[in-house]
């Protein structure tokens, strides 16, 4: 099978999952115990307003028709109207997408920049002090809740020393990078700890292989052996760790954006939960799920590119 056919087959294989995801998102409004309209507007709402909202959400139709309407609406590229912001949800999400996206990309970059050298350093000195230090510190970093590290970093670096802005989103590229530095570093820490551990153990495993011994007997330098022979083969499991944990990274944006008051999608989800804006909750959950499905697809394709044995 060629890579192209593999890509196509994998893509259409996602269809049933996509459908169940849509149905799950649709159900979010209908699983609310009691009357969703009353739940959204509160017990003080007048019967007219309740009726109006039920009409707007389509709750008076039979359930199969509601699902059809939900799909038809999606087919037109719309996610409905937010109750709180009184604006189309797609517009709200797209206006905040850049914040969350840059946050996630920047923390993935931080993760790679920090974990690659650290794990190489640890493997080079395995069983000695650097290895031990890297392992212990990654365990500690893994164990620290992100919101806690975020609060501490905010208090020390932003409030006490004034090195970074304390909240919000800036104007222009440099200002934005300045605003994003601390949140994305904190967001990336958890993943950095995981990737460092994974890459270290994968490197150790690869270094035991026979072709590494062969390379050593040829007299290649350590540098060539580590970077050219070992690292390349240890990268595949590491991409798995990165890819599988993107969900954790995306979910954590809710917490990090709240701590650092960033106007991203995650913070908007929390807002929507607090004011019970269910259509907005549905829209944001769907966008997050689509992002992860796309990510899993891309990771699978990357596998195929790095190691063609997978799709043959």
């Amino acid at each position, binding site marked *: 099978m060629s890579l192209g056919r593999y890509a196509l087959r994998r893509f259409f294989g996602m269809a049933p999952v996509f459908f169940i995801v849509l149905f799950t998102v649709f159900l979010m409004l209908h699983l609310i115990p009691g009357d969703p309209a009353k739940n959204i507007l509160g017990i003080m709402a007048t019967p007219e307003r309740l009726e109006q909202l039920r009409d707007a959400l389509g709750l008076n139709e039979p359930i199969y028709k509601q699902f059809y309407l939900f799909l038809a609406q999606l087919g037109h590229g719309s996610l409905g109207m937010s109750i709180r912001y009184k604006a189309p949800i797609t517009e709200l999400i797209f206006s905040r997408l850049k914040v969350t996206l840059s946050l996630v990309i920047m923390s993935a970059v931080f993760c790679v920049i920090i974990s690659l050298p650290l794990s190489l350093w640890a493997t080079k000195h395995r069983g000695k002090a650097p290895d031990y230090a890297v392992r212990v510190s990654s365990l500690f970093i893994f164990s620290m809740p992100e919101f806690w590290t975020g609060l501490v970093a905010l*208090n020390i670096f932003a409030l006490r020393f004034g090195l970074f802005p304390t909240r919000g989103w800036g104007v222009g590229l440099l200002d934005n990078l300045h605003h994003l530095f601390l949140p994305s570093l904190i967001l990336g820490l958890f993943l950095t700890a995981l990737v460092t551990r994974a890459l270290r153990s994968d490197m150790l495993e690869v270094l035991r292989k026979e072709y590494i011994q062969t390379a050593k007997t040829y007299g290649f330098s350590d540098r060539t052996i580590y970077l050219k022979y070992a690292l390349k083969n240890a990268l595949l499991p590491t991409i798995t760790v990165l890819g599988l944990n993107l969900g954790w990274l995306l979910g954590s944006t809710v917490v990090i954006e709240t701590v650092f008051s960033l106007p991203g999608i995650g913070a908007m989800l929390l807002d929507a939960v607090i004011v019970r804006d269910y259509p907005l909750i549905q829209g944001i959950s769907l966008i997050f799920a689509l992002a992860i499905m796309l990510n899993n697809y891309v990771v699978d394709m990357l596998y195929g590119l790095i190691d063609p044995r997978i799709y043959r």
Partner: protein
Amino acid sequence: MHKTTIGTIMSRYIVPFFAGEDTTRWETLKNFIKNPNSKAGLIMIGILTFVAIFAPLIAPYDPYRQNLSESLNPPSLTHPFGTDLYGRDVISRVIYGAWIAVKICVIGIGIAFIIGNLAGALSGYYGGWIDAIIMRIVDSIMSFPFLVLVIAIMAIFGPGLKNLYFAIAIVSWCQYARIVRSKYLSEKEEEYVRAAKAIGFSDTRVIFGHLMPNSIMPTIVYASLDCALVILLAASLSFIGVGAQPPTPEWGAQIAEGRQFLQVAWWVATFPALGIMYAVIGFSLLGDGLRDLLEK
């Protein structure tokens, strides 16, 4: 669990261990206890569970009792971890937080563990359309970021600890189902399973008596690591206000209460954070130790 599963585990692991029989299984258990990772993890989780269960006896004060004249007192001999804004004793609240963390692990992960093992068994043993349906559901639940789906579930059913257990169980059974299924696919073709089928044992007996005891270990390893993740997750949820609600002495909720005073009263938020770190490190060490044991 089926009685034969418990019987098999008893006769294979528990009895030889206490009877001191010189079997390889006893050797692995001895290795497990000697492994520095698992030793440290076992001791840490043992202490955590002990403190959690005996919280009412160990905690010096009632975690809910307010005393406004002692608001935000620094750590001292009478209050080793200081007091919070309402004059409540922080060490008592951290100790009761351990009880909540243990409950989240036992109930949330416990339900997920049972559902996941059963669903994975059905999926792996029968295959066909049962497998297709279960696995598509698993795939779609796992398409959502864990935290986002739990937040959505909490938004639907309302905040609070009980709903938190429920939400965690709904989302986390998937990973167990996947692990069990893949184990069954390879184990199904083994001689002992074929033999059991040839004798004419019922499907239930083959699954619970023969396959499950041989495929449960990877899920136990995962459960230990999952406890670490779920403690972090529950704390995050309570911190942002959709999990346990104040005045519940949950660690994340306590950090949320102390966040405004981090500059003037560091102890209110720091000690619950240390509690989280302690539990997470303990469970990850235990999980690492178990994994080493499994891979040997």
